[in-house]
């Protein structure tokens, strides 16, 4: 049996009077992805800093790749990579120089450093810009380099502190793809994010943190189930069928909402069974549909359910207004 890649036991960090992390525990099995989800100031970065030996816990312990983060800090540093807002790249150096700097400081063999720089530049699509100072890079390029730098010594465990905060949706999707590839290759990932969607996309397990405490833990699906019922969403082909369709849906669901302009009916449902029954009823009645689907509650709903307040996105630049869209959809 192998030991878990990352293990946190009752981690606490106090800054004077202020308790930033208040007894956080979790286990990350090897080769899986843990998402630490929470609003700004929840304690995600501080937790990451303790796990990556940048900050000494006030109490509690943690192990990375089997090594204690305080007593065996050096062994931890050999076993993990760190990227994101907690550690960053040098703006005045080129991508190649940044990679070389880190390669040299790990004391990697010269030939390995040379070939690895080439591979990483290629993999992260930075070959063209490799010899330009990083300050000329776009946000997405910078994040890719940041990630490349953290992979220089091919660490089995990778910590990513808000890897996509401030990125445009396209760069974000591209970065997700790279991260999935790393996981396929066997890397264990611990990522913090305030994007509910991100945790949902990438993580096998999610820990929801609020005010330094773990308020929920589970798979994305489990967490969504906690937030209440799913709903069936039908988009009709012809607006003329709306009234008839609504009647049919009401036979199957206690709560129905009709959006006339979008020709969309949203109905509370128990699961896939309800969806297929509604689908069959429409077919029988000859009502044409553009789209029929089951919508589970988003993690935003989960957060609202758990904390009684919405995830606070203050400070995140370029935050897409998922929340607003959702609220509009529900209205």
């Amino acid at each position, binding site marked *: 049996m192998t030991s878990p890649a990352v293990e946190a036991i009752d981690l606490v960090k106090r800054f004077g009077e202020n308790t930033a992390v208040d007894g956080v525990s979790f286990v990350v099995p090897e080769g899986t992805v843990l998402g630490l989800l929470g609003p700004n100031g929840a304690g995600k970065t501080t937790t990451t800093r303790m796990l990556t030996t940048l900050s000494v816990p006030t109490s509690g312990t943690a192990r990375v790749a089997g090594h204690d983060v305080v007593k065996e800090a050096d062994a931890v540093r050999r076993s993990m990579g760190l990227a994101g807002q907690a550690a960053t790249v040098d*703006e005045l150096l080129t991508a190649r120089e940044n990679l070389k700097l880190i390669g040299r400081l*790990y004391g990697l063999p010269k030939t390995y450093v040379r070939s690895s720089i080439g591979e990483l530049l290629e993999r992260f699509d930075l070959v063209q810009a490799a010899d330009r100072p990083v300050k000329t890079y776009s946000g997405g390029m910078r994040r890719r380099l940041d990630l490349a730098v953290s992979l220089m*010594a*091919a660490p089995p465990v990778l910590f990513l502190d808000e890897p996509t905060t401030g990125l445009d949706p396209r760069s974000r999707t591209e970065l997700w793809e790279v991260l999935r590839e790393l996981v396929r290759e066997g890397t264990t990932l611990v990522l913090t994010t305030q994007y509910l969607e991100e945790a949902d996309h990438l993580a096998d397990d999610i820990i929801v943190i609020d005010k330094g405490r773990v308020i929920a833990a589970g798979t994305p699906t489990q967490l969504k189930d906690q937030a209440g019922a799913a709903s069936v969403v039908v988009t009709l082909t012809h607006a003329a069928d709306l009234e008839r369709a609504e009647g049919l849906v009401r036979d199957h669901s206690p709560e129905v909402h009709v959006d006339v302009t979008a020709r969309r009916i949203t109905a509370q449902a128990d699961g896939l069974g309800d969806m297929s029954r509604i689908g069959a009823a429409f077919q029988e009645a000859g009502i044409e549909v553009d789209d029929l689907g089951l919508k589970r509650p988003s993690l935003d709903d989960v957060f609202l359910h758990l904390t009684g307040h919405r995830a606070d996105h203050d400070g995140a630049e370029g935050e897409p207004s998922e929340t607003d869209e959702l609220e509009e959809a529900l209205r």
Partner: protein
Amino acid sequence: MTSMLTAQRPPINPPSMLRASATIVWRNLIHIKRMPEMLLDVTVQSVMFVLLFAYVFGGSINPPGDVSYKEFLLPGIMVQTMIFTSAIAAMGLTNDLQKGIVDRLKSLPISRSSVLVGRSISSLIHSSIGIAVMAVTGLLIGWRVRESVGETVLGFGLILLFGFAMIWLGIYVGSLMRTVEAVQGFMFTVMFPLTFVANTFAPTEQMPSWLAAVAEWNPVSALTQACRELWGNGVTAPSDAAWQLQHPVLMSVAWSLLLTAIFAPLALGAYRRRSRD
């Protein structure tokens, strides 16, 4: 692409503290190369100050003994440049702390002091470039070193030793402050009086007696007096001058050691505290 990441991990042989420091110096020097304007303070400004002082004030200041003001000035202004190394080190460190570079380096399996040692060495190189520029400017306008090679080298050695002490002050301030702007504001406020209330630019004899006493006991004055004597750029201090000016070489070394003894523990403590969070 096959798993380069997990299948074959490369051997990690973290470098010694000195090698890691040398690598960090390499990185810091690339900064100077990329942003040559970082050197403006010790190049263009140095030349400008030498010329301004030599030609604007030079005529109205009479150094003791039969020494031209240009000769009197050069040791003083070189000492001032080296004292500003503290500001250079502080700003560099704060910038790295602020931008997360220190965190990146701390996440690596290297000695944590290599970040500070690297910063110290590159700051000393930075200031030494300034001293070299001043020396050349000085030689062009008539400054000369008039004593033996050994004494000349000793003078520059004392300046470097003092610069080393100043770097600890810089690391202390750099670890305490949050922004480069704050560091700059603080250091300049402290460094200008420290380097002007001394014998650097004008003899202390004409100062009000209380100010002269302060100036003569300023460590900066001991170092400046030592260089003037070692380089033949000034007369020995009169017998009524402060005791330290009668023994300037000894006192320069003593001040360097004392300041290091005070600021090195403070600096390491502040840096460690900052690093633990």
